[in-house]
């Protein structure tokens, strides 16, 4: 297993919405070249963790560093729109594609902050190679795609942002099993080509099979963290998340 320098470091973050505190001192780390998965049930705070890293949800305590630089702390941090050009990119829960833009326009939104047209074209070709269905549907409106196709679109759009770290929030949610396998295959391919990935999943088995390391998040606290292979056979994980 690769173990490069830490790319994303989340240290004791507390966050929430209004009077509800969702995260109670969550810490985790993603190193260069890894696939790390964050598993946990509904409402555990997985999405909130990613939204904190993306600068959308403010921190109430703790801090987050990316590539050695602090990007979030109490009372501020780097604005969400400035994190994308640094390579901190998220594929959000529920895809959040732009329904009234074509597939191609959606993909190009991923490249919004980029100024290297040649590089963008190269990445676009790469995305079309990874998901050939997107090429076929390139002039179709995003809102008319199936759930699985939208997920591929969301991933493709994120690749066009030229990520250093790709954070994916529940890419398997509400998608036909065949497409889930296809998407997880793509995640593996992306990682092999050098992309670091933080994968949030409810589908714990599939995520742990894919990942190098895993964290278990329960009601806003990290309760377990280990190599993915070990978590796969850990009795606590088996009982709670693998349905055995």
């Amino acid at each position, binding site marked *: 297993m690769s173990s490069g320098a830490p790319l994303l470091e989340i240290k004791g973050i507390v966050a929430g919405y209004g009077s509800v505190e969702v995260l109670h001192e969550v810490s985790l780390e993603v190193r260069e070249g890894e696939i790390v998965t964050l598993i946990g049930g509904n409402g555990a705070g997985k999405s909130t963790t990613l939204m904190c890293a993306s600068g959308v949800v403010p921190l109430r305590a703790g801090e987050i560093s990316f590539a050695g630089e602090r990007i979030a702390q109490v009372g501020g941090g780097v604005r969400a*729109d400035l994190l994308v050009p640094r390579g901190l990119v*998220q594929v959000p829960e*529920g895809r959040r594609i*732009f329904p009234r*833009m074509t597939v191609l*326009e959606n993909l190009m939104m991923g490249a*919004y*902050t980029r100024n290297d047209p040649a590089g963008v074209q190269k990445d676009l070709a790469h995305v079309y190679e990874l998901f050939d269905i997107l090429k076929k549907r390139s002039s179709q409106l995003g809102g008319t795609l199936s*759930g699985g196709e939208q997920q591929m679109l969301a991933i493709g759009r994120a690749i066009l942002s030229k990520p250093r770290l790709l954070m994916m929030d529940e890419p398997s949610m509400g998608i036909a099993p065949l497409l889930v396998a296809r998407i997880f295959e793509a995640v593996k391919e992306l990682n092999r080509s050098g992309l670091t990935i933080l994968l949030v999943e409810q589908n714990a088995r599939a995520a742990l099979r894919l990942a190098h390391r895993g964290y278990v998040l329960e009601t806003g606290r990290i309760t377990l963290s280990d190599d993915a292979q070990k978590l796969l056979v850990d009795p606590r994980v088996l009982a709670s998340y693998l349905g055995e």
Partner: protein
Amino acid sequence: MTETEVFLQQVIYGLSNGMIIALVALGYTMVYGIVELINFAHGDVFTLGGFLALTVVGALGAAAILDPNTLSDSSHWLLLVGLVVTAGLFCGFLNVAIDKVVYKPLRRAPKLTQLVAAIGVSFILVNIALFWGGAPMEVFGGGNAAAASKDFPEILEGSNLLGEDSNVVLRLEDLAIFVITIPLMIGLTLFVNRTRLGRGMRATAQNPIAARLMGINTDRVIAATFLIGGFLGGAASVMWAIYNNTISFQMGFRAGMDAFTAAVLGGIGSLPGAMIGGVLIGLIRAMSDQYIETRWTNVVVFGVLILILVFRPSGLLGLKQREKV
């Protein structure tokens, strides 16, 4: 006048008024598209645009220098374009300031709070217009009573463009409205579809969180939206002023109601919808004035609004479905 001529005349009236309504409607629909707020103060921003234009005309002494005999003189058109730009910028920045001070702090507040705040801003602006109208300035013809309508000097004057013998009248003002409004609409459409900031606007309207995750500075996009919406409203106020040769502190109320109806008719959030809706409302008003009766026109227009809300709440070009989740 034959029946056909009467009809054609109403078409001209309807189109001219409809274009003005459409410009104002664009301001409603753009802001709604981005922050899901019905900016009830928009009509009153429009009113202040008219007052600014009149003040500028007065300051320039333009009322005096404008000689109807020098019709060919391009200075009339220059003055008109200058007023459109000045009032447009004034209303644009006023709109941005209102957003910064009032709406932005309420962005996460319940929709009702935002709506009430917008109505509050509307009252404030109406009273600023009243105060402004009471200012003892030469340019305010029609008396210095604050609430009185103020004469707006005839900037474009001239004979019937269709010839003196024609019963159907096409005035220079009608032409001015077309040649200023249509390029503004084309420009807006190109801006939204072709430029980077325009793409950012569309993305923010369709999914603000995703827009931020694409690296779009949504605060800047929202400010730009208020700026452009306000600019179009300011431009419209000058058209209104030269078309009707009068302004009043209440002009934005009626224009705002018509424009809001137009935006809903076209499909709130849709730019082409607002343009088509505006022209349709203009035509409906003109036809109702002619063929029903003027006093029933408001009933007809708001009857249309109610019918849309009941039978096609998403409007003519509205979005029937939200995105799949």
